[in-house]
């Protein structure tokens, strides 16, 4: 059993492992960018175009590298979960969707993978689908990111049509040279909304902390290291194109700054370790958006550094939170403390990762922080962004202290849990190794130099030929760090006091917050839908029929009036006996249907009309149609008769209890009939274009070896349509069967 349960995790883990090695190897041996293109939908000019440049390569390495850690961790975290295979399958699909998103060079292909990540995020957040909170969070994340994706699609289409190409690399190259039209502005705004929803920027920030009901490896992977960075990735990718636009710059800086500061302040409100980390992720994403908005070259380097550094410290911190949850059963700050004795290795990983988050020297976070400060001291940053950045830095220190020091070193509170054990190697290796990589890159930053330089060059094309020199510079940053460290420690010590204050504020502001607006609008949807349904689906069959016939006649009549042509009354020719008898049958059936009240007889009279039409078809030269009509009519009568008999047995009325004379119904019938007659007369008057029937008649035997033209059209010339039709018929049966089954069981139960 033990060996068997290891096979699947190992097999799945091979996927990120092999792709990580392959990408690293390829990066080492081949120059960027790489391009691949396959024709997909040639008629629409959609190609599966992929392009890997420095930025894509950085994202790919993060996706597969962090993915490797996540896959290993999942093996330990969900060791006893029956649906572990599902988690692995979804994570693998997510990895593919992510890799596709960051390499796609065609807007529509990018959109497809982008929505794929939203969908998989929905499925992964709802992994514990038996819990209501999970389902709600999953729905929320899908509604926000999924509808953001649709807005993004609208933006992509506008952009593609305005520029005249859907190739991302081409659009970015041409954008600076074309005039800034209103269409382009609208496209840009829509794309911004799409990217902001994905990267949880204000006012779409609320879904990310709620997505924490996902299993911890999922939170570490999707909601901190990769998927939420997709929005930032898209902004960074488009920045060379839109970078000179004032609105673009203002929006990125403004929204990013607000998100960075507000996200960090909301961090203090939380008591749950994972939610604390989630809010700080929101804030980091805000900082990244600001950095994309800055124009200087240093800012582009800073984006690359922060992307990597954040993945390397936040994923281990999530793993640490997961370990604590796994081994103590809680993530609540109030119940945790003094865990360093029982969980020494987790404590070490937490300490190393937190050092990077706080930006302490000799960590990769420090390198990132240094470059960010450089970038922000350039002239084009307004004061607000600087304040936001300071708040961000201070609280980052406090969060790092809380996750690493408070739960491991401070004394446990009175109600703390005592039955604690250290986790297994599958839960310890991923955070330790990732945190160690973070420290290693902090001591030897030049190892990441080429990668970051290539990524920055993708965001800032003028940097292509400039070598980047990342080295350890301890003196300059100490001063700036000193203040944020000091204030951060202060916030860390006052955490509980600040928490109470924020709770008080939250209670006051709760009603106008974005979340409550979202909740209320969600409540409205079923209400409106119910109101509409009650109006339209009243269950009165005669009114349904009247509505259908009336609206069809109206539309048809209006169409005829607008496109009216001369009506031609056909010349009189003596009909054959067959046609006359068929018409007599139809007229007889119609009159009988109008007069008869007993339902079964009514059905038979109705059948007469069908048989009459079939005979008419037979004599007018379409035997195929006649056969079909005969068979369908027969089956229909038998089936409906069975239902009527059932109704009779249930004593639900034997005859139609309606007045014999209904003027409105007669009027409606007369209108339908006259509009149809009018239509026929106009059709008769129009000149007939024989091109198609001549083609089919001519080619039926020559090209398709069949003399029955109708059948040849069905199975050969239009075979694709027929295939679609039989598939639809089959699918409709699949959908109808459960309903019909319910119908059959209900009266049976009622009788008993």
């Amino acid at each position, binding site marked *: 059993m033990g060996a068997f349960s290891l096979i699947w995790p190992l097999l799945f883990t091979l996927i990120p492992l092999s792709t990580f090695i392959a990408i690293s190897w390829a990066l080492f041996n081949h120059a960027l960018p790489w391009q691949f293109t396959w024709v997909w939908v040639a008629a629409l000019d959609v190609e599966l175009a992929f392009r890997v440049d420095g930025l894509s390569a950085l994202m790919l390495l993060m996706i597969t590298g962090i993915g490797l850690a996540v896959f290993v961790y999942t093996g330990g975290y969900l060791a006893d979960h029956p649906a572990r295979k599902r988690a692995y399958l979804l994570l693998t699909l997510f990895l593919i969707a992510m890799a596709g998103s960051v390499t796609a060079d065609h807007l529509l292909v990018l959109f497809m993978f982008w929505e794929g990540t939203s969908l998989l995020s929905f499925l992964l957040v709802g992994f514990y689908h038996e819990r209501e909170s999970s389902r709600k969070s999953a729905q929320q994340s899908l509604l926000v990111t999924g509808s953001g994706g649709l807005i993004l699609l609208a933006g992509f289409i506008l952009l593609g049509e305005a520029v005249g190409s859907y190739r991302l690399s081409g659009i970015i190259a041409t954008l600076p040279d074309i005039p800034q039209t209103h269409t382009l502005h609208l496209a840009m705004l829509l794309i911004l909304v799409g990217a902001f929803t994905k990267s949880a920027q204000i006012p779409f920030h609320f879904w990310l902390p709620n997505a924490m009901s996902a299993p911890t490896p999922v939170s570490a992977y999707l909601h901190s290291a990769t998927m939420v960075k997709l929005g930032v990735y898209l902004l960074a990718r488009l920045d060379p194109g839109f970078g000179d636009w004032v609105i673009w710059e203002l929006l990125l800086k403004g929204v990013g700054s607000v998100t960075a500061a507000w996200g960090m302040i909301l961090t203090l409100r939380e008591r749950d370790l994972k939610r604390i980390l989630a809010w700080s992720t929101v804030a980091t994403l805000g900082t990244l958006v600001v950095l994309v908005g800055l124009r200087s070259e240093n800012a582009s380097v800073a984006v690359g550094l922060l992307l990597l550094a954040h993945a390397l410290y936040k994923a281990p911190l999530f793993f640490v939170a997961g370990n604590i949850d796994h081994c103590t059963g809680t993530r609540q700050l109030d119940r945790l403390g003094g865990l360093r004795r029982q969980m020494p290795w987790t404590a070490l990983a937490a300490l190393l990762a937190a050092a990077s988050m706080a930006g302490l020297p000799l960590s990769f976070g420090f390198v990132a922080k240094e470059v960010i400060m450089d970038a922000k001291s350039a002239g084009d940053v307004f004061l607000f962004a600087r304040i936001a950045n300071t708040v961000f830095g201070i609280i980052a220190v406090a969060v790092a202290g809380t996750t690493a020091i408070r739960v491991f070193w401070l004394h446990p509170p009175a109600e703390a849990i005592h039955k604690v054990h250290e986790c297994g190697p599958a839960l310890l290796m991923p955070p330790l190794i990732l945190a160690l990589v973070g420290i290693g890159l902090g001591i030897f930053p030049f190892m990441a130099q080429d990668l970051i330089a290539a990524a920055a060059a993708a965001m800032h094309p003028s940097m292509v030929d400039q070598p980047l020199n990342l080295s350890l510079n301890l003196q300059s940053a100490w001063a700036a760090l000193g203040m944020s460290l000091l204030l951060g420690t202060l916030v860390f010590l006052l955490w509980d006091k600040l928490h109470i204050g924020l709770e008080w504020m939250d209670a006051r502001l709760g009603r106008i917050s974005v979340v409550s607006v979202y909740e209320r609008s969600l409540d409205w949807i079923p209400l409106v839908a119910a109101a509409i349904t009650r109006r339209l689906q009243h269950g009165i069959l005669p009114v349904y029929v009247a509505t259908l016939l009336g609206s069809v006649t109206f539309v048809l009549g209006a169409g005829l009036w607008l496109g009216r042509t001369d009506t031609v009354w056909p010349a009189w020719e003596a009909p054959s006996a067959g046609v006359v008898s068929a018409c007599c049958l139809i007229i007889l059936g119609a009159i009988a249907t109008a007069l008869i009240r007993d339902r079964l007889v009514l059905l038979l009279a109705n059948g007469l009309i069908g048989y009459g039409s079939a005979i008419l078809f037979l004599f007018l030269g379409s035997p195929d149609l006649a056969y079909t009509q005969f068979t369908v009519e027969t089956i229909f009568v038998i089936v409906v008769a069975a239902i009527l008999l059932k109704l009779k047995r249930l004593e639900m009325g034997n005859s139609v209890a309606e007045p014999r004379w209904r003027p409105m119904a007669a009027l409606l019938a007369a209108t339908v009939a006259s509009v149809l007659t009018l239509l026929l007369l106009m059709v008769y008057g129009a000149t007939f274009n024989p091109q198609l029937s001549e083609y089919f008649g001519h080619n039926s035997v020559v090209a*398709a070896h069949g003399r029955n033209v109708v059948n040849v059209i*069905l199975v050969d010339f239009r075979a694709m349509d027929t295939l679609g039709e*039989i598939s639809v018929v*089959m699918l*409709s049966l699949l959908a109808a*069967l459960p309903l*019909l089954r319910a119908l059959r069981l209900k009266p049976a139960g009622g009788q008993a």
Partner: protein
Amino acid sequence: MKPRVVILLVVAKPLYWLILLVSVWVLLRGHHEPGGGFIGGLIAVSATVLWAVAHNTTAARHRLPLRDPVWLAASGVLLALLSGVPGWLSGQAYLTHLWLSVLPAWPDLSVSTVMLFDAGVYLGVWGALSGYSLALLAVDENGQENGEEHGRDR
């Protein structure tokens, strides 16, 4: 208990096979004379409906090939889907049909992917419309039979 008509019960069996035979004949002649998969399938449905009226829907369902309308319909769609593959593999557009003469002396007798396609339509229509008809006809059968049958369906 539903009243049974003796004459119908006796006649049902030969008639069932006769109708099926006719339906296959209509299917096969379809390419040159009036007929084809759609009509043939519909005629086959009428045979199934006849059996359901004479006996009951469960018996009619078990008379179907594969003993289940959904599977029958699915196999038909699958057959039609597959019939396009040979043409596609030979480098033409998907669903381009191929012909193969069996006897050079009798050029009218040929096998082709068109026939497979039409047979797929036949099975698809037979399965799908039988499914509808049987489910609707079952409304008129009494409760005990249904419960038993419902259990078997699962």
